[in-house]
């Protein structure tokens, strides 16, 4: 299973994404994404029976569980779950599978900065692997602004500590903003600059997804 390193040139310096599909055999769709040494594994269990208490009549319910490296899930993981489930809710055409549940479990294996970006890519790859009906593919990028105004993309943990603001954008293939998680103190120009950088990488990420899918499909000779 050769892994294609996908290094994006331009001024968007990113640590390069490596993705492996089908990691978890029992899951309907699964993916492990490595960015530098931030590693996230995500398993998707396609339309399954929903618990009658949470069952929705007209659309599928999305349940996301996030587990970080150590310890029990606390408020930090709960907030990431909210971000991921809101992405799924808007991207998946849930009204095609009423009365069912789509359960996603995300395990952060090692966290060395911009973990949300890695989680989003793992989520998108595993949804593609599970062939759930999606409106569009989506990807993410994280920009950290340092005190001297310079911008770092895809920062590691050390760079994140020194940064004054960390802006994470989740964008669809046309570069429009699907979700965002921005903390630290910044102003509008910085946010918009980060957003324009993010949307410029949208096309590269789509090609990356196309590569991953074609690698999965190429194992089958028509």
């Amino acid at each position: 299973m050769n892994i294609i390193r996908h290094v994006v040139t331009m001024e968007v310096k990113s640590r390069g994404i490596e993705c492996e599909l089908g990691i978890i055999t029992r899951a309907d769709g699964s993916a492990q994404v490595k960015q530098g040494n931030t590693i996230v594994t995500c398993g998707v269990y396609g339309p399954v029976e929903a618990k009658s208490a949470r069952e929705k009549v007209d659309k599928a319910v999305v349940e996301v569980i996030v587990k970080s490296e150590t310890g029990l899930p606390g408020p930090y993981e709960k907030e990431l779950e909210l971000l991921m489930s809101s992405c799924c809710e808007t991207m998946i055409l849930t009204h095609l599978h009423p009365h069912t549940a789509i359960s996603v479990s995300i395990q952060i294996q090692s966290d060395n900065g911009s973990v949300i970006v890695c989680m989003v890519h793992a989520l998108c790859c595993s949804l593609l692997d599970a062939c759930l009906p999606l409106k569009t593919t989506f990807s993410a990028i994280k920009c950290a602004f340092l005190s001297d105004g310079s911008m770092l993309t895809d920062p590691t943990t050390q760079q994140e500590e020194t940064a004054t603001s960390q802006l994470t954008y989740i964008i669809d293939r046309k570069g429009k903003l699907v979700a965002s998680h921005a903390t630290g103190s910044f102003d509008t120009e910085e946010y918009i600059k980060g957003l324009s950088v993010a949307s410029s990488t949208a096309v590269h990420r789509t090609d990356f997804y196309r590569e991953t899918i074609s690698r999965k499909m190429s194992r089958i000779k028509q």
Partner: protein
Amino acid sequence: MAVTSKDTPLTSTPFVLPGDKLPPNSDSANNRTGVYVRDGGTYSSICGKVTDSKSTVKPLVPPFMCPEKGNIVLCRVLSVSQISAKVEIISVGSQVLKEPLMGIIRREEVRASEKDKVSLFQSFRPCDIVQARVLGLGEGQAYVLTTAESELGVILARKLCHGGRMIPVSWCEYQCSVTGKREKRKVAKVINNISSN
């Protein structure tokens, strides 16, 4: 020694609290709404102003009416299986329930004629609005409902995602205004001009 709290006279002031004495009225037929009888005297069980005929109380807040046998209820279909359809009762008579209650329509109670050849899949779909009559309390969690009369059944078929309106075409079919697709339902004969009873 016992506190001689004044015996509550017939309430001169029009406002009544639960427990205040009401003059005994003859028609104790509708003794359900806001009045109850205790060892002889009739007492009010809700707060409100006493109406001029001094027998019923205009309630401050409409009292909760639990679905009784024979009430007509408006409910929304939740899920349909082969033997029964689970519904969520939205309003009882003209009183809107603050929190929906569970109801169930069994296969035998869908249609009056040829009961056993009914297929629930052709009678209801989730998100339909159904008018039914309460058969009884039932022993489980849900109330037992029936749509065996001609004016009971699906009133409004569900809204399709592309906004088309479903128009009843015959006693057992709805047609979508946009795509023209026909869907089978147990249609209620809705007479438009009769206001709610």
